[in-house]
């Protein structure tokens, strides 16, 4: 089905472990984004990508790594998870020709113990 999907939907891990959150979109949108959402902070941009092999930092990039080898995939990796990275993570995509409307995935709830 067309759309944007995230996996896993729920993840529990321990401090210090590496975790990768997956994001896949079927629209061939140029832009993809990763946000985290915490109580009291709203949505904050972690990283974004304007095209395959082009990524840039957002507001809160520390502790995260991204890559984009294919247009449709934009994985987010926590190289050494910390408790402060417990959050809900949303992936989004957009195509600038549509006025930058962003389409969001269902989110991944990550808990770091």
């Amino acid at each position, binding site marked *: 089905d067309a759309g944007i999907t995230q996996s896993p939907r729920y993840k529990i891990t321990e401090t210090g472990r590496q975790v990768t959150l997956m994001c896949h979109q079927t629209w061939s949108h140029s*832009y993809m*984004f990763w*946000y985290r959402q915490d109580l*009291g*902070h*709203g*949505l*904050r*941009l972690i990283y*974004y990508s*304007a095209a395959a092999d082009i990524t*840039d*930092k*957002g*507001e809160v990039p520390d502790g995260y790594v991204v890559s984009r080898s294919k247009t449709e995939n934009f994985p987010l990796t926590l190289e050494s998870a910390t408790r402060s990275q417990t959050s809900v993570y*949303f992936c*989004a995509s957009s195509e*600038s020709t549509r*006025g*930058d*409307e*962003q*389409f*969001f*995935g*269902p*989110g991944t709830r990550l808990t770091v113990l």
Partner: protein
Amino acid sequence: LAKTTQPISMDSYEGQEVNITCSHNNIATNDYITWYQQFPSQGPRFIIQGYKTKVTNEVASLFIPADRKSSTLSLPRVSLSDTAVYYCLVGPRGKSSGDKLTFGTGTRLAVRP
């Protein structure tokens, strides 16, 4: 970066018109104003976008005064299903706009019977 200020929460009753105002005093010439809606446990969803004056679609209206330092999202005749968090975003469209999009904490709208 254009910072936005919205009320933290609002209450309304079914059938009423709801107006949510967003303040963005340092909006730049090439910035657009975009509103998103987020239901619990879901990613945000685009509602409406505008640059100046008034924009209307099947869901809402967006009023932007001449100085563009604020904007008002108007939801006509709300129902219980309009209970959600509403985000006002200000930023440029097109390339390299990702790092300038700030969601903030939004306005939590509660619609009562």
